[in-house]
């Protein structure tokens, strides 16, 4: 492939970096496919029977066997599976009678929105707290902030969700007790409690990391230098301390998005939010295995994309990053 000639070296480099990262994703993707393919085979007995649920007839079993190629050797079955996935065919939901890909397309935006919202709230909570805590190190305010976030690390999402829902939804009626709003802006209101309970754990992780990176940066020579140049303290904090301390926190944030999305399974269940997380749980209890399989794959793909974006943001934030 001819390398496109770009006006700037940096952009060529960046493009190269993106292509390299995309190529690196291929073997990972292959292993993910094997895993997701193998998942349904954990089911005891004939997968066709499990997929069909209540509608088991000899004809239906024969049809599914033919469809999935279950009479063929396993490597060939895997090949058929790959073919179907590439064509966007993830099977059909037994209970909802809708193609799985359709279900995912409908509900994934809600989960992504909730996850993003939770991530934003986590940043809004953790960054000011970490700055305050680090700058007032060893004082009562530092201890208080650290104690609150220490509890945040151990507060289960389902429990926090349930308590927030009861107190601010059912008792005080400040917020709706579940579901999503009719419009996008109303979602900010509807999803506030779910996003808060989902984001608090991440906030605790980020606060810890950012606090210790700020403390590390505070000792750096370039900070002493900036100060001795007579730059105003606020500017030193923003340009020199925070910018450098945030680098590792941004990476941690990107890497944690996956865990955050996992937590959405719980939040969505507690708050009855029609996203993919709740769909996963209802499908498990409805024995809708094609949906469970499809969702597992969808989660992995979304998070691979998020990781890619994180790497790109990182390379922009930290000019020292070179293409590996």
């Amino acid at each position, binding site marked *: 492939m001819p390398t496109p000639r770009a006006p700037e070296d940096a952009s060529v480099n960046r493009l190269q970096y993106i292509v390299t990262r995309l190529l690196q994703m291929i*073997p*990972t993707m292959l*292993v*993910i496919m094997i*895993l997701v393919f193998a*998942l*349904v085979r*954990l*089911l005891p007995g004939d997968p066709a029977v499990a997929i069909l649920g209540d509608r088991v007839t000899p004809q239906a079993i024969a049809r599914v066997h033919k469809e999935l190629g279950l009479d063929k050797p396993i490597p060939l079955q895997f090949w058929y599976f790959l073919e179907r996935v590439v064509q966007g065919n993830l099977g059909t939901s037994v209970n909802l009678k809708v193609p799985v890909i359709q279900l995912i397309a409908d509900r994934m935006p809600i989960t992504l929105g909730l996850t993003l919202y939770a991530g934003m709230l986590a940043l809004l909570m953790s960054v000011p707290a970490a700055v305050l805590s680090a700058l007032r190190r060893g004082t009562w305010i530092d201890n208080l902030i650290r104690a609150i976030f*220490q*509890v945040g*690390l*151990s*507060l*289960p*999402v*389902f*429990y926090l969700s*349930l*308590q927030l*829902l*009861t107190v601010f939804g*059912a*008792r005080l009626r400040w917020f709706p007790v579940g579901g999503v709003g009719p419009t996008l802006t109303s979602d900010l209101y509807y999803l506030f409690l779910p996003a808060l309970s989902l984001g608090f754990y991440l906030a605790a992780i980020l606060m810890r990391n950012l606090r210790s990176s700020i403390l590390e940066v505070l000792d750096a020579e370039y900070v002493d230098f900036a100060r001795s140049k007579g730059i105003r303290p606020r500017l030193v904090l923003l340009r020199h301390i925070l910018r450098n301390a945030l680098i590792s926190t941004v990476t941690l944030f990107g*890497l944690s998005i*996956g*865990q*955050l*999305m*996992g*937590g959405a*399974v*719980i939040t969505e*269940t507690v708050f009855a939010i029609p996203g993919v997380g709740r769909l*996963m*749980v209802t*499908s*498990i*209890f409805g024995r809708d*295995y094609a949906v*469970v*399989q499809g*969702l*597992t794959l969808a*989660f*992995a793909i979304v*998070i*691979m994309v998020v*990781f890619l974006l994180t790497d790109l943001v990182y390379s922009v934030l930290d000019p020292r990053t070179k293409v590996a």
Partner: protein
Amino acid sequence: MAAPSAAARPGRSRRLASFRPKPTLLIGAAIVLVMIAMALFPQLIAPYNPTTFDYNAILQAPSAQHWFGTDNFGRDVLSRVVYGSRIDMQIALFTTLFPVLFGTLMGALTGYLRGWLDALFGRIVDVVMVFPFLILVIAIVAMLGPGLTNMYLAVSVVNWVYYARLVRGETLVQNQSEYVQAARVMGYSPSRIIFRHIFPNAVTPAIVYWMTDMSLGILLGASLGYLGLGAQPPTAEWGVMVADGKNFMVTAPWISTYPGLVLTLAGVGFSLVGDGLADLLRPKR
């Protein structure tokens, strides 16, 4: 954070002599000990039988007879919380035991031997990192069927990777050190070098992580219990208890609130112990 006095005095015996754990470590250890005591001797601590229905004492608010109140079957919530410790401490152990044993072993092997085993391990790590932990565990439990045993299986299949990654990294560092090179020069066999020389030195971070991981294991187990995929009712498990009381949150909030508080407290206890150990064992500069 680290006591400055310890920095000036190297040497293991000296360090132990100046052993002054931070108060947070002591608080954490105290919490963990109470939890373990509840798990080992619930009958001595719990005032009532945790599974006996008492239809004369349904949905009673906390009182002198029932400190944590009673649930919709008249079961004493405090007693159920105490007995619940039995299940949740078991969860802490069984979600981490296989991972810590197998994971540290694999980490040392892949880190020392490299080659195809290490390459394969690299792919496995990539994949496990790409899945949200909870999603992967839930997907496996979905296929195997809900329940504690299947949950342990599902968590173990995924969780060992984290330990292996830690020990592998540490093994790579130790591999460069002089004592390992000396052992190689002496002509020791790979297995002797791995198990007698590298492993004892590379395993420390994994042991520290084990404590923190137990707290994660408890939270994960309780979350699956809440969703109905872990321990099954009527088992007294804290996550299941929170789920049992969720329809009474407005009229009888104590049913869910107390188990959840104790669950959080257990999580705090284990993670404080983990942090405290990490502080103590971190090489002082």
